[in-house]
C-alpha cells in the first residue's frame, strides 16, 4: 500500500481525498490509470488478431491467386485511398495533441482536437462513401452480389475512354489533372443518371457511351476517372483491364476488399462515437494531470485504427 502511494507523485498529490473518478478497489489513481491502459493494450491485441484473420485470408488468396489482386486493384481509386491515408494520419496527430491537452488540463484545446479528429473521421467516411458508391454502381461487389454484366459494361467504357485518350491528348486534362475536385462531384451524380456529365468530357466520348450502353449505364462513365486516373501517365494500363479476360472468381478480391475496409470503417465510426462522447464529457475540466485515462485509451484505439488503414491502403490499392 505504502509502496503505491509513494509512486503517485505526478498524480493526485493535490488532494488527500479520493479523486471522484477513482473506484473503490484501487489504491491510487496511478494504479487505476495503468490498469486501464493495460486493459486497452490487451483489447488492441484482440483487435489485431480480429483483423489478423482477414489479413490472413488476404495473404492466402494473394499467394494462391495473384491474378485476382493483379486485376482487382485497378478498380480501386488510388487517389481517394491516398487522401484517406493523409486524412487519418492528420487525425492521429490531432488525437495525440488531444491527449497532450488532456494531460495538461487544457480543456479548450482538448475539445478542439477531439472535434478536429471527429471531423477527420467524417472526412474519411465521406470519401469512403464515394468510393463505395462507385463500386456499387459498377457492380464491383462482394460475393454473389458481384454484378458481372455491370462490370462488363463499365470495363468496356473504360477501354473506350482509354482508346479515346490515346487519340485525344487534350482529354488528359480531364482525367488526369484535378483528380479530386472532378471526381467527387461526379461520383455524386452517379445516381442522377447522365444528366451531369463532367463538363470537360469530349463530346465524342459522350456519344460513344450513348450508343454503347443506353441511358442507364451513363452515370457510370465518370468512373473512367475513378479507376484509371490513378495509373499515372500510363493510359496503356487501362488496356490491361480485359473486357472478357477477367480472372475467374474475381468477386473474391472484392469480398476481401469490402470486408476489410468495411470492418475498418466500422471501427472508424466507433472511434468517432468515442470522440463525440469525450467531447461532451470533457467539460468542467474533468480531465487533467491526475485523470485522463479515457482520452489516453481512446487515443490508443484511434492510433490502432489508423495503423490498420496504413496496412490496408498499400495492400489493397497499390500492389
Amino acid at each position, binding site marked *: *500500500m*505504502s*509502496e*503505491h502511494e509513494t509512486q503517485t507523485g505526478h498524480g493526485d498529490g493535490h488532494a488527500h481525498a479520493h479523486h471522484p473518478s477513482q*473506484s*473503490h*478497489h484501487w489504491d491510487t489513481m496511478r*494504479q487505476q490509470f*495503468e*490498469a486501464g491502459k*493495460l*486493459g486497452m493494450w*490487451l*483489447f488492441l*491485441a*484482440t*483487435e489485431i*488478431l*480480429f*483483423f*489478423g*484473420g*482477414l489479413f*490472413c*485470408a488476404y495473404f*492466402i*488468396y494473394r499467394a*494462391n491467386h495473384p491474378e485476382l489482386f493483379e486485376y482487382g486493384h485497378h478498380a480501386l481509386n488510388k487517389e481517394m485511398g491516398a487522401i484517406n491515408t493523409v486524412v487519418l494520419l492528420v487525425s492521429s496527430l490531432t488525437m495525440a495533441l488531444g491527449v497532450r491537452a488532456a494531460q495538461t488540463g487544457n480543456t479548450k484545446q482538448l475539445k478542439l482536437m477531439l472535434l478536429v479528429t471527429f471531423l477527420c473521421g467524417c472526412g474519411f467516411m465521406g470519401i469512403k462513401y464515394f468510393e463505395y458508391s462507385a463500386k456499387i454502381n459498377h457492380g464491383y461487389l*462482394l*460475393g*454473389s*452480389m458481384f454484378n458481372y454484366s455491370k462490370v462488363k459494361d463499365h470495363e468496356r467504357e473504360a477501354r473506350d475512354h482509354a482508346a479515346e485518350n490515346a487519340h485525344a491528348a487534350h482529354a488528359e486534362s480531364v482525367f488526369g489533372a484535378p483528380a479530386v475536385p472532378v471526381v467527387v462531384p461526379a461520383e455524386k451524380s452517379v445516381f442522377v443518371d447522365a444528366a451531369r456529365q463532367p463538363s470537360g468530357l469530349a463530346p465524342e466520348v459522350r456519344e460513344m457511351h450513348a450508343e454503347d450502353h443506353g441511358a442507364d449505364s451513363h452515370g457510370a462513365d465518370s468512373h473512367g476517372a475513378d479507376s484509371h486516373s490513378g495509373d499515372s501517365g500510363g493510359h496503356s494500363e487501362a488496356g490491361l483491364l480485359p473486357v472478357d479476360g477477367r480472372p*475467374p*472468381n474475381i*468477386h*473474391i478480391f472484392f*469480398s*476481401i476488399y469490402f*470486408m476489410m475496409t468495411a470492418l475498418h470503417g466500422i471501427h472508424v465510426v466507433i472511434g468517432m462515437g468515442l470522440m463525440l462522447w469525450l467531447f461532451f464529457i470533457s467539460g468542467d475540466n474533468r480531465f487533467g494531470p491526475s485523470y485522463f485515462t479515457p482520452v489516453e485509451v481512446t487515443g490508443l484505439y484511434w492510433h490502432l485504427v489508423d495503423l490498420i488503414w496504413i496496412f490496408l491502403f498499400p495492400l489493397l490499392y497499390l500492389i
Partner: protein
Amino acid sequence: MNPPETGTAAPVAEAPAVPHHYLNHSKGFLSWALTLDHKRIGIMYLIGVLSCFALGGMFALLLRTELWAPGDTIAGIFVKKGGTKTAQDIYNMWFTVHGAVMVFLVIIPGVPAALGNFVLPIMLGAKDVAFPRLNLGSFYLWCLGAIFFILTLFMGGVDAGWTFYTPYSAITSTAVIPALVGVFILGFSSIFTGMNFIVTIHKLRPPGMTWFRMPLFLWGSYATAVIQVLATPVLAITLLLLIMERTLHVGIFTPEYGGDPVLFQHFFWFYSHPAVYIMILPAMGIVSEIISVHSHKRPFGYQFIAYSSVAIAIFGFLVWGHHMFTSTQSPAMNAIFSAITFSVSIPSAIKVFNWLATMWGGSIRLTVPMLYGLSFIFLFSIGGLTGLYLGTLSTDVHFHDTYFVVAHFHYVMMGSALIGMFGGLHHWWPKMTGRLYNGKLARIAWAFVFVGFNVTFFTQFLLGSQGMPRRYYDYLPRYEIYHKISTIGSYMMAVGFAIMGVYLLQSIFGGKKAPANPWGANTLEWHCTSPPPHDNFKTPPAIEDCYDYSGIDYDPAIGGYTSRANPPK
C-alpha cells in the same frame, strides 16, 4: 510487511451477531442484476453454467438413448409428420446442440468465469477484479449468447456440428446464423473476462503478493486468460466470415464460390485448439490447489507447475494443424504439427508427475474435492495418453473421425476439465454458500459419475479402434454391445449428477454452517469468513506463503481450521 493486525479475537466476538457477508449485503433483484461484486457475478455465472450443463446433458442422454440399438430408437418420435426432417436430421441436431452448448456455454466459461470470478480476486488479496463493470458486461454477453442458442433451438435447431465445418455449414438450411451469432457473442464475453483477469493479476496484486507467491490456480487462470485474449478474436472473425459466406457467398470458405474449405478448418482450429487449453488449464489450476490442500503438503515443484501452465498456453497455439492430418495438409506440415503436438505432453506430464509427488508423503484426506482431484489425474492421464495415438500420423489416419476421437476428447474435456470444475465446486462450495454439503451423498454421487464416465467413454475407445465413425446415427450390429454399455454408463452419470443437484440444493437450504476454513487450506480466500464479506478484506491481508501448512491448526470447536499467522476477520 504485515499491516497492523489487531483484534485477533474479533471473529469469535462477531460470530453470534448476524454475520455480514456478500449474500446479505444488499437485497432485491436489482442488487444482483446490477451488481459489480465479482462474487455475485461469479454466482450468477455458476447458475447459468450449471443450467446449461443440465441442458447439454439432456441432449447427451438423448444421443446415447438413440444409439442404444441400431436403426431408429427415439429420434423418430421427434420427426414431424409432413416435415422435411428425418430422424437422422434430428440426431444431427442433437449432437450439434450438445457439443456447442457444452463447449461454448459450459466448459469455456465454467472455470474461468464462474469459479474464477468468485475465487480469483479473493485468492489474490484484491477487493474486486480490475474492471467490475466490464465483468458484469461479460456476464450479460454470456446471457445474450445463451439466448441466441436457445433461439436456435426454437428455429429448428442446427445440424452442422459444433465445429461448423464448411462447406456444409454454408449450405445447410438449419439455423446456423443464430448459432454463429451466439458463439460470436460468447467469444467476446470470454475475451473480456480474460482481459479482466490479466489486468487484475498484473495490477491488483497487493504488496507482498509476488508472482511466485501466487496460488497455482492463479497461474492457471492467468495462462487461460492469455489464450482467451489471443485466440478468441480469430474465432470471432472466422464466424463472421462464415456468416458472410452463408449470406453473400463471399467465396472464402466454399469451393462453389472459389473458396477453400480447409482454410476454414485452419481458421477454426487456430482458435479451437487453444480453446481446449482454455478449458483444461484452469481445471489444472484447481487440481493443483486441491491436491496440495487435501494432502496438506506444499506442491512439489511449484515453479515447474506454474511455468508448465504458461508453456501449455504457448504450445497450444502451435498445434492446430493436428486436426487436419487427413484434410489434404502436406506431409511436411503434418510431420511438423505432429512433432509439436508431442511436445505438449512435456508440460502436461510435468503437472501430472508433480501432483503425484505432491501427494507423496502427504497426509492425504479423501474428501469429496480430493476424490475429484484424484479422478482428474486418472482421467487426464488416459485422455492425454490416448492423445498420443491421435498425434501420431500413421495411427491418426485410422482413428480420425471415429469414436476413438470422441472418447479421447471426452476424457480431456469432460473427464478432466469438467471433473476439475466439479472438484473446484466442491472445494469452494462452503466458501461460496457458507454451507456444508452432505459428504455421504456427495461420495455416492462421485462414485456414480466416476464409474459411469469410464463405462461410457472407455468403451468408445474400443468402438473407435474397431472403426465406428463418429456422428453416425446408425451402426452395424457388431457395434451394438459397446453402444449398449456406453449408454448404460451415461445413465449412471446422469444419476450421479442428479444426486449432486439434490445435495447441493439441500445444503443451501438446510446444510450445516461452514467454518471459515473447512479444509485446512492457507490461500487467502480461506482467511475470510464463509461466505466472504462484501469487500473481501477490510484491511489488506497478510501475504505469506500460501502453501505453508505448519501454522494451520484444527479447531474442533468450530469444526474447521484456524491460521496462526492470519486469523480470520
